[in-house]
Every structure is written in structure tokens, then in C-alpha cells.
């Protein structure tokens, strides 16, 4: 993977130096803080009512009432924020002309693609760290199911990897960052909602649409169920769009 490390380090540095990272992280952590507060507040209200009404106690479940909706909301925030985050990956280099430097250095397209992809996933992990204090806080006052928490984190990480790979691919097609963000948001939204047609289409096409739906595979993971089919879906999704990016980069060799 010639050039992977060089590109990875360069990208980490550029991301950290860019205001986009700080703004998106601030919005992400801020919104997640609000969602966390809202679900905890609701849960404590329900707990008070349960104190008056003993047979409600059996219904109370911290993991189901707080942890699962928290990560479900996170997926929605990611849908809006990650396209803003991946839009610059290639579009910025094309616009500023630094792509000429990248393409004339002895870096293989594979190293370039993976370096950029890995750095974007790493930066998302840093954003994700901002939510850890909320979960720790929850653990200090209640007793959530830690297995489910781990499975939820794995789920959003897989989801983010998929979002980032698609965003990176779209960014490699254009030199306009706004276009990159808009197209990746639209495409992600389409993958989000494609499962809806399952109710109207019978047979194989409906099943395919359901399997392609990007959010359906998160449900089990948020329940704490790590199914290899779901993990495989996200891994394949990421691999497919990384491969598409690679082909786009190589296409300049034969396209004139």
C-alpha cells in the first residue's frame, strides 16, 4: 500500500486544521447531548410514575428507553453531518489543484483511497468519543446493559464507515464540495428509505430492496444482536464504494 501512511497522516492533519471538523463535531456532540437529556428526562418521569403505580415497574428498562433511542437518533444526525464531512476529501484537492501534486507523487491509487478513507473513519471515531461521557454518566446513575452499549457503538461505527465510503466516492467525482455534499446526502437518504417499497413489492425485488436498506441492518445491532449478515452488509457497502473511488481515480489514465 504505497503512500498509505503518508496520505493518512496528511489527511489527519488537514482535517484537524480545518474548521469543518470543529463545527461538525460541536454540532454532533451538542445535538447528542440534547437527545441524551431528552431521553433521560423522559425516563425519570416514567420512573416517578412507576413509583406510584407498582405494576409499571416491570416495563421499565434503561437500555431500551435511553440507550437504544440515543443511538437511533445518532444515526439520523450522522445522515445529515457526515456528507458535510466527506465532501472535501477529493473535491477540495481537485478545486485547489493539489490533486496534481498527489497524482504525480509515487503514491498508488489504492494507498491514496485507503489513506483518505481510514483518516475519515478515524476522525469520526474522535467525534464519537464526545458521546462517551454521556454513556459513562448513564452508567454512574443507572445500570445499562454494557453488551448492548458495545453493540450500539459497533453499529454506528459500521454505519459511519458505510456513509463515509459513499461520501468519499461522490467527492471523487466532482470538484465542487457543495455538489459532493448534496449528492451524497441524497444518495444516503435513498439508501435509508429504499426499504419502504417492501410493503408494495412482493417477492425477490421487495426482499432485495429491504436488504439494501441501510438502516434496517442497524436495528438488530441496536438491540444488542450482532448478526454476521448485518456486519457483512456494512463491510460490503464500504468495500464497494472504496472500490468505486479507486476506479474513478484510475480512470484519469484512460479517460482523456
Amino acid at each position: 500500500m504505497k503512500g498509505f501512511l503518508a496520505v493518512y497522516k496528511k489527511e489527519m492533519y488537514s482535517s484537524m486544521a480545518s474548521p469543518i471538523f470543529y463545527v461538525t463535531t460541536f454540532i454532533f456532540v451538542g445535538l447528542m447531548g440534547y437527545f441524551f437529556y431528552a431521553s433521560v428526562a423522559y425516563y425519570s418521569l416514567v420512573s416517578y410514575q412507576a413509583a406510584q403505580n407498582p405494576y409499571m415497574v416491570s416495563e421499565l428498562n434503561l437500555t431500551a428507553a435511553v440507550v437504544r433511542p440515543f443511538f437511533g437518533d445518532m444515526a439520523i444526525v450522522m445522515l445529515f453531518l457526515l456528507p458535510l464531512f466527506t465532501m472535501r476529501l477529493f473535491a477540495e484537492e481537485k478545486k485547489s489543484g493539489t490533486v496534481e501534486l498527489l497524482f504525480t507523487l509515487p503514491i498508488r491509487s489504492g494507498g491514496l483511497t485507503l489513506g483518505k478513507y481510514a483518516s475519515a473513519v478515524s476522525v469520526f471515531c474522535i467525534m464519537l468519543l464526545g458521546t462517551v461521557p454521556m454513556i459513562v454518566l448513564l452508567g454512574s446513575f443507572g445500570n445499562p446493559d454494557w453488551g448492548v452499549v458495545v453493540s450500539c457503538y459497533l453499529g454506528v461505527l459500521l454505519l459511519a464507515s458505510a456513509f463515509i465510503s459513499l461520501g468519499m466516492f461522490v467527492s471523487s467525482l466532482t470538484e465542487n464540495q457543495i455538489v459532493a455534499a448534496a449528492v451524497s446526502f441524497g444518495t444516503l437518504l435513498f439508501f435509508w428509505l429504499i426499504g419502504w417499497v417492501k410493503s408494495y413489492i412482493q417477492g425477490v425485488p421487495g426482499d432485495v430492496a429491504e436488504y439494501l436498506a441501510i438502516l434496517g441492518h442497524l436495528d438488530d445491532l441496536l438491540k444488542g444482536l450482532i448478526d454476521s449478515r448485518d456486519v457483512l452488509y456494512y463491510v460490503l457497502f464500504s468495500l464497494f464504494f472504496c472500490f468505486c473511488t479507486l476506479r474513478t481515480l484510475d480512470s484519469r489514465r484512460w479517460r482523456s
Partner: protein
Amino acid sequence: MIHVEHLTKDYGGIEAIRDVDFDVEKGEIVGFLGPNGAGKTTTMKILTGFMPPTSGKAVIDGFNVLEQSIETRQRIGYLAESVPLYGVMTVERFLGFVAEAKGVESKERSREVGRVCEACGLEGVRKRIISHLSKGYRQRVGLAQALISNPPLLILDEPTIGLDPTQIVEIRNLILGLRESHTVLLSSHILPEVSQVCERVIIINKGRIVATDSPRSLQSGRKGGDLIRLEVRGPQSEIARVLTEVPGITNVAQDRGPGEFEVRVEPGKDVRPVIAQQVVNNGWELLEIHRVALSLEDVFVQLVTEEEEGEQS
């Protein structure tokens, strides 16, 4: 070092270069000369593997730029016309990235960065952020980046553009210092610069090579013979009459000012001693006599007009 054969590049109907052939030997410093839009940058972009040619082939050090892209890129230091740099990085970090990308061992990276910084006069700005640097310094960072890992071939697209005269001299000396150990292909539309640095010039116009020669022989091979300027004190019309009678002189012009003459001579003849003799014999005072050196501008204009005349006829 560079072998280019029938290189053609077509930008959707607009031919940037057509059927370009040339060779550059190891250790040569070759200038690529032409007006804006002549195809200099296009040729260089093809050589560095940034874009593919429509047809034809380019070989660098035995490697085809299209099929063995990584091998050729390892042998080239390239300064692109737009000087692409990462503005958010410091000079040091940027050069460190280029060194890592070029495969310089991690132990030697800081030494290599130090070496190119010294060569390009960047020691004072190593910790500065590139986007805060002036155009001249950015140009030097671009050049430093090309020199990293000491590649045998340097392709420099307009290396001295945007620099002040002192910096131009520095860069010129830097390029001259690379002579013999490196092969250099540089482009320019500033002709004196090319004639001072390059052993050979390739003149390109409208995508085609018009001439390939050394700056010196391009200058001597002028059409219509040499031009001699002299300043003589004495009876003007008499002087002009005598000069016209000197064998070898084809034309005498007197339009430059009082006492100044411009004489055109048949090619290959040096009539300066004869003129001096005549002036002295007649008792006039010879103040100045010199042969006008043909600048590359003149050569260029001549070649380009010849080309156009050739096309019309």
C-alpha cells in the same frame, strides 16, 4: 532520459499538442520555450503522468509513463505551473509529507527536508504556515518539494514566475548547480532566462515543435545576415555613401539618431575591420561599433513567422 514520440493531446476537439517528438539526454538542461497556450504545460503534464496522451508515447529512463506510472513518478521531481501546495501545513510538515510519499526512510526524512530547505533558502520560514507565505516563497517551497529524494529528472513548469530579480538569480544558480547530476526540463516564456540556463532549447508553438537547438546557434543562424551598429562623428551623408560602397554591406539605415548608423551585412561576413579602416582613412571619428546580438525574442518571432508563412504558401 526523456524520449517522446508522436505525442498528441486532444482536449475534446482542441488540439493542445500534435505529433511532438524530442529526446533529452542524461545530464542535459533543456528549455521548453513557447508563447502562452503553445502546449508546454500539456507536454509536461503528460510526462509526469498526470494526464494521458491521446496518442503517441513518452518514455522516461526506460519506463513508459502510461504503463509504469509509479516507476516514472519515482524518478521525477515536478513543479507544476500552479504550484500546488497544502496551505494549512507548515513548510516543514509539507516537505515531510512529500518525503514520506516519495518513500524517503523515516530516519533520513528530517535531514532530507533540511537539505532542500537550505538549497532553496527556506530555513527562515520552516515553521511558517504555507498559506501565509509570499508568492516567491511558495514558489521556492514548490521547488524544494520537487528536489526531495533527489530525483534524477526535474520537470519545472515556469520555475521563476512570480519571483523578484534576486530570487530569479538564486533559482537560476540553483538549477545550474544541478547540472550534470540531474536532467532538467524547464519551461518558460522569458527568453533571456532560458538562454542563460539551458544548453538546448525546444521551441514549441501551437502544439508543434518549431526548432530544437542551442541558444547560441539559434542566435547565429539569423536570416538576412548580421546587424552592425556604429556611431561616427563627421559629415553624415558622406559617411552613409562610403558605407554603402563597402563590399558585403547590403543596407545602411540612419534612422536611429544623429551620427548613428545601422548596417546590414551579408550572412557570414564580418566587415567591422573594413568599416573602421574607412572611417579612419577619411579622417572621421569612430565613437562606437558593435555587432547587434540577436535576442531569443527575435529568433522566436522569426521562427514563428516563418512557420506561418510556410503554412500560408
